[in-house]
């Protein structure tokens, strides 16, 4: 995984805009001096009124902006979705390690809000990279508009059943989906998720079983080679910081 120095200072970013994408919100921040980093890296965004920031991978990097896709599933993410143009929040990032882009035949696979890092990833890989998306409802599938030309599975159909052979899979999604991807495509790269308080190795809260031991996802990932996580012992549900 690519590794870059971890930033140690927060900066403040003004909200440039906020748009609904299906049930999600695309929160656009003025980029300022922030580096968009490597696709799959993440930023800690201040959740107004909450004690702890929340981690988000970068969704899009339009000129002068950084955009994040937010699923309003708890008090922190709801506060982020309620931000309006001109508000400002503290931002720390980019953090962690992103996807390796030196793959021969990339195929992007995501489930639900796991779509978040793919638009920026596809942009950096080259616009024609094929994409498979799975959503639990047609409303959620509206987010597919962020990736024109993507093949979409809705409801009981599993996106992992659509993956053809012969590709380098770069995936992001719910943990059960990632386990299936890891089992079937051992060379894939997976963007994992865990509750985090800090994002830079201080809180030890985001451990997942990596290489057979509990390690901090913020430092080891969040993008991991599938071989490192195949034998997960603990059920690391979304839990922890209530999004």
């Amino acid at each position, binding site marked *: 995984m690519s590794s870059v120095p971890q930033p*140690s200072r*927060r900066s403040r970013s003004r909200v440039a805009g906020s748009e609904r994408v299906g049930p999600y919100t695309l929160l656009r921040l003025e980029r300022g001096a922030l580096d968009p980093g490597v696709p799959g890296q993440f930023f800690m965004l201040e959740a107004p009124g909450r004690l702890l920031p929340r981690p988000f991978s970068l969704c899009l990097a339009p000129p002068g902006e950084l955009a994040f896709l937010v699923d309003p599933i708890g008090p922190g993410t709801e506060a982020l979705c309620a931000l309006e143009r001109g508000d400002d929040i503290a931002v720390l990032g980019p953090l962690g390690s992103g996807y390796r882009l030196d793959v021969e035949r990339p195929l992007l696979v995501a489930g639900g809000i796991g779509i978040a890092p793919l638009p920026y990833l596809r942009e950096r890989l080259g616009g024609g990279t094929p994409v498979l998306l799975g959503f639990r409802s047609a409303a959620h599938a509206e987010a597919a508009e962020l990736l024109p030309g993507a093949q979409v599975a809705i409801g009981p159909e599993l996106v992992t059943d659509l993956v053809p052979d012969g590709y380098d899979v770069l995936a992001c999604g719910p943990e059960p989906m990632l386990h299936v991807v890891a089992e079937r495509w051992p060379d894939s790269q997976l963007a994992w998720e865990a*509750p985090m308080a*800090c994002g*830079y*190795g*201080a809180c030890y809260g985001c451990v997942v079983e990596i290489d057979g031991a509990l390690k901090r996802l913020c430092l080891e990932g969040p993008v991991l080679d599938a071989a490192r996580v195949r034998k997960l012992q*603990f059920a*690391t549900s979304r839990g*922890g910081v209530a999004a």
Partner: protein
Amino acid sequence: MRLLNASGCLDALAAPQVARELDGFVTKTVTPLPREGSAPPRIAETAHGMLNSIGLANPGRERFLADHLPRLRELGVPLWVSVGGFCAEDYAETCAALGDVEAVELNLSCPNVDEAADSAAEIVAACRAATRLPLYAKLSAAHPDVAEVARAVAAAGADGLSLINTLRGLALDRGLRPVLARGSGGLSGPSLKPVALHAVAACHAATGLPIIGMGGITTGRDALEFLACGARDVALGTVLFSDPSAPGRVRAELDAACAEAGVVSSDDATGIAKSPENSRKVPA
């Protein structure tokens, strides 16, 4: 006034730039044997605070001394080693193995392991016999009379006190299941501050020992209040999670808060809190 981190709230090897902003780096608690720590989820946000059950994850004494400590020394920041264990000998053996560090903090109160409730003085005495390094006893405010514990560890040879550790708490998710895999965990953050201020004031009055005050410090004004209650130094904990630039910010804010309070220097602020009689006059 020295500005430190609360043990377990910063990894100086992962974030050396943050550690270098401090007057001393306090390690995560070192136990005799390696500990992988608790299963996740390990953290939960609460109203004005958070719970953690990290479970004293650490590489163990042997690897800490051979691998971590040499790399920490390269940072050039005074090192405080937090020492933990399950009996007095555990603590004393680690103290005896520590050479040239600034001080030792004895974690007598981590809520994630079975607590050695009445043996605080015994542990301090054993460590006193094992090292000449300054010994700071980190106490919990869960004891009904923290000043009594402070007097006991002072008599046993502690050079200072670290006040306070987290308090045990519980948070439930929407399905009424504990958020933390271990069930309960240590409460930290702003909700802890009033408890911590009281413990600092009570232990300052009871012992006069140097105190590192901590528990929900978010701003320079918070730090000033800890000094005013009797702390000589202060430590940042949970605030480091949301703001790694907190050390520089809190320091600047403390200078401003001192100026506003008419205090020349933060070094002159220890114990200046007024008594209730002086500050609260009943209007005629």
